[in-house]
């Protein structure tokens, strides 16, 4: 058993609980209840916000 720490955060969309392990700031996770794509804005403790839309076409 690897000693991953599992955190439980609240989904900002449906207030369901989202279990996350070993996430980095900026990482995108999916809410198991409502399926919303959420961005990890902090890791200690883990806080989530709705991830921005996908956008194409950047620099070189």
């Amino acid at each position, binding site marked *: 058993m690897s000693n991953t720490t599992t955190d439980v955060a609240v989904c900002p969309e449906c207030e369901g609980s989202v279990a996350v392990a070993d996430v980095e700031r900026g990482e995108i996770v999916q809410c198991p209840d409502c399926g919303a794509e959420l961005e990890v804005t902090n890791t200690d403790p883990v806080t989530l916000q709705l991830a921005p839309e996908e956008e*194409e076409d*950047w*620099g070189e």
Partner: protein
Amino acid sequence: MLVVKIGGSKGVDLERFLGDVPSVREPMVLVHGANHELNQVSEQLGHPARMVTSSTGQVSRYTDRRTMEIFMMVYCGRVNKTIVERLQGLGVNAVGLSAMDGAIARGRRKEQIRVIEDGKPKVLRGDYAGSIQQVDTRLLRLLLDSGYLPVLTPPALSSEGEAINVDGDKLAMEIAAALCADKLLIFSDTPGLLRDVRDEGSLIGRIQRDEMEQALEVAEGRAKKKVIAAREALERGIGQVVFADGRVDGAIQKALAGQGTVIG
């Protein structure tokens, strides 16, 4: 009116390519990149390039503020001015500019971008990169009408007046469209668009306007981005787009004569 894009690929001998510029009689804007040099200098300065991939497979450079400083040094400093130095030495009255100068190209900075890094989907912020929204050709026309040869490089300007990294091919295409260029010549270290990137013999010679969709299937990675740009170029009124070999002598004249992948 001619717009010529010379890439930042390491295979192209810039010195040799520029030797052909004095032979071009019509008004011309030269747009260049410096991708390869930027990777080298970033390494030397201890801030190695961080390439990120979008979920649709598009690869681009994460351009934080430190990267933008090095970007300016390499694109606007070393490569742009080495080109100007070489052209002046050949008797061509070159004027080197970034797309910020005279607010030539303005674009929208992506506040945050979604990428896949180490297999994980992420949101990245503080990326000084974006897409071009508008081109102001007044400075370019002023220079062209007075007999100067503009030598243009990213970065462009965001609406908030910040430097933003924009794709060199896209910049060339936007400039060509805004100047209603007859031809947009895009040079790199391959003979043109290849059916099989590993086989330089698999050159696609001609793509008529109605064969664009098939061409899109053929191209991979960076080449795919080039075909997308070419299609849009034709839609925007540019007469013809040619992908040609920047490594050969007389590269520009050969491309003008149709050597390479001629589209439109």
